[in-house]
């Protein structure tokens, strides 16, 4: 895979850590996100996935280690700062307002205005329609409230929005968690499309079957620590699933249970 930036990571964390009071939520995690590649973060509940994205997205500051954007260390104090550096996050709740129309949601926070300072509604509608079409989403009516869209459609609107507003790094927080099989497939297709457009993607999931087909690099988290970091060439789906499921621990458990039988 050719890297337009000559191999330098768009976003990189080195030995990063975060504590909430006396709780160590994340410690010593290292990974990188390159343009045109998907970095998958896998882990069970409480593994530290959310903490990691919150640091990347600028919601929380890290306590230790380094966060690098384009090779230079940064420390975000707000999501806006991360956004300004081209790091866009699509949260599980999608950050959409259900009662507002698709185009108002699409431009929320970055509304286009005319010279007189009014909303440029025509442009907003047209751009929304084309941006969604470019992502392969055909919405009948950009005037309908987002609440009337299906879960997959809403996810796609959120992704299209991030891509449109010049995101270079797209962080997706469990985008397939609440979706059915078919819709999850559609969303993964859009993830691949964003990757092919040269974005660096961070995909957070606890489903290795969703991560493996689109991922280039896999970071496994467990109880706030990195359990392993692998390139796709180094690991197969089965091994990924095994590690994800607790791997060695499960074997030990099986051993223990057999012992009880005897």
């Amino acid at each position, binding site marked *: 895979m050719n890297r337009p930036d000559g191999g330098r990571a768009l976003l990189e964390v080195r030995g990063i850590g975060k504590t909430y009071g006396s709780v160590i939520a994340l410690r010593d995690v290292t990974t990188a996100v390159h343009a045109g590649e998907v970095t998958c973060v896998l882990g069970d509940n409480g593994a530290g996935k959310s903490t990691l994205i919150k640091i990347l997205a600028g919601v929380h500051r890290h306590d230790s280690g380094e966060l690098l954007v384009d090779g230079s260390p940064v420390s975000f104090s707000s*999501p*806006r700062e991360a*956004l300004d550096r081209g790091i866009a*996050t699509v*949260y599980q*709740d*999608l*950050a*959409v*307002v*259900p*009662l*507002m*129309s698709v185009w*108002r949601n699409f*431009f*929320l*926070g*970055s*509304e286009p*205005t005319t010279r007189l*300072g*009014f*909303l440029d*509604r025509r442009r907003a509608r047209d751009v929304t329609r084309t941006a969604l079409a470019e992502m*392969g*989403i*055909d919405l*009948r*009516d950009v*005037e*309908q*409230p987002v*609440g*009337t*869209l*299906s*879960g*997959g*459609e809403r996810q*796609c609107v959120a992704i299209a929005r991030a891509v449109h507003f010049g995101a270079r790094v797209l962080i997706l927080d469990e985008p397939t968690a609440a979706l*059915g*099989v*078919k*819709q999850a497939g*559609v*969303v993964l*297709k859009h993830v691949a499309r964003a990757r092919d457009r040269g974005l660096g993607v961070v995909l957070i999931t606890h489903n290795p079957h969703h991560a493996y087909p689109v991922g280039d690099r896999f970071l496994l988290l467990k109880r706030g620590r990195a359990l392993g970091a692998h390139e796709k060439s180094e690991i197969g789906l089965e091994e990924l699933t095994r590690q994800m499921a607790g791997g060695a621990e499960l074997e030990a458990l099986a051993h223990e249970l057999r012992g009880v039988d005897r």
Partner: protein
Amino acid sequence: MTSTAVSDPPDERVGPPRPLDRLVLRPEIGALLGALLVFAFFSVATERFLSTGGVATWLDDASTLGIMAVAVALLMIGGEFDLSAGVMTASTALVTAILATRLGWNVWLALLASLAFALAVGALNGWLVTRTGLPSFIVTLGTFLALQGLNLGITRLVTGTVQVSGMRSADGYSSAGFLFASTFTLGGTAFYVSILWWVLCTAVAAVVLLRTRFGNWIFAVGGSPLSSRAVGVPVTRTKVLLFMTTAGAAWLVGSINILRFTSVQANQGIGLEFQFIIAAVIGGCLLTGGFGSAVGAAIGALIFGMARQGIVYANWNSDWFQLFLGVMLLAAVLVNNALRRRAERVRR
């Protein structure tokens, strides 16, 4: 679970949007129908209702309520309440009156000072609500009671009674009165200028709400503050500005009142806050925020004015007004609820 195809080809199971679904986007429709109904009823039932004098009376009744209802509607769309809005109309009038009559300030200067006071209280409301994350219902109930106490306490301290009067002899009364409390003649009947203020406020609020970035943010912070913050909407600033807008509107109404009646009672305005909220709800605002209309709130105030005066013209006991109000409010809430469910209905 049924799943809907997301991308091409378009899902053949989904029909084109029905015209009725389009109407959902217009929260003021219900209020408009209600207003037509009330208008038609009293036009037929009474003779004075449609006379120019009658029209001038119910428009005037609706005007000061309407100015507040529109501001309160913006605040409610932004997801907050302001229970101090009613008593604020008296507080601002008292500040103006005390400064002008007791300290001998020029009326214009007194008006400016009371505007500054109003905006400060509005900002305080907003700051307390956004800072603490407490429901605005309880925070503004606090400022409501505090202002009520201040109104009575300070008025009694300064005047020894519970009213301030004598505005007419203050400096600058005539020019300020012209702007806020004069009448204009149309078809041989005098209409109060407050009606023009009402129309102006409604127009400005409607344009701001639907055609500006700030308006977009109002819907967003009321619909989902967390999502709004995540995409970079300044939630705190938007809410504080909305509280200041409500306080500013209360200043306008207070100024109209003090200049028209030239005196103010310290216990005025109490209970009006619910009328503002009721008018806004009749106009299509959701109690939960994120949905509503400025024009709708103005129409809600119009219904209020028409019914209140219509009942007088029909020579009914004004007790019936409360019954009418209750039924109207219930009907509006039910309609709004149905509309919201339609708009929020989730397809999976």
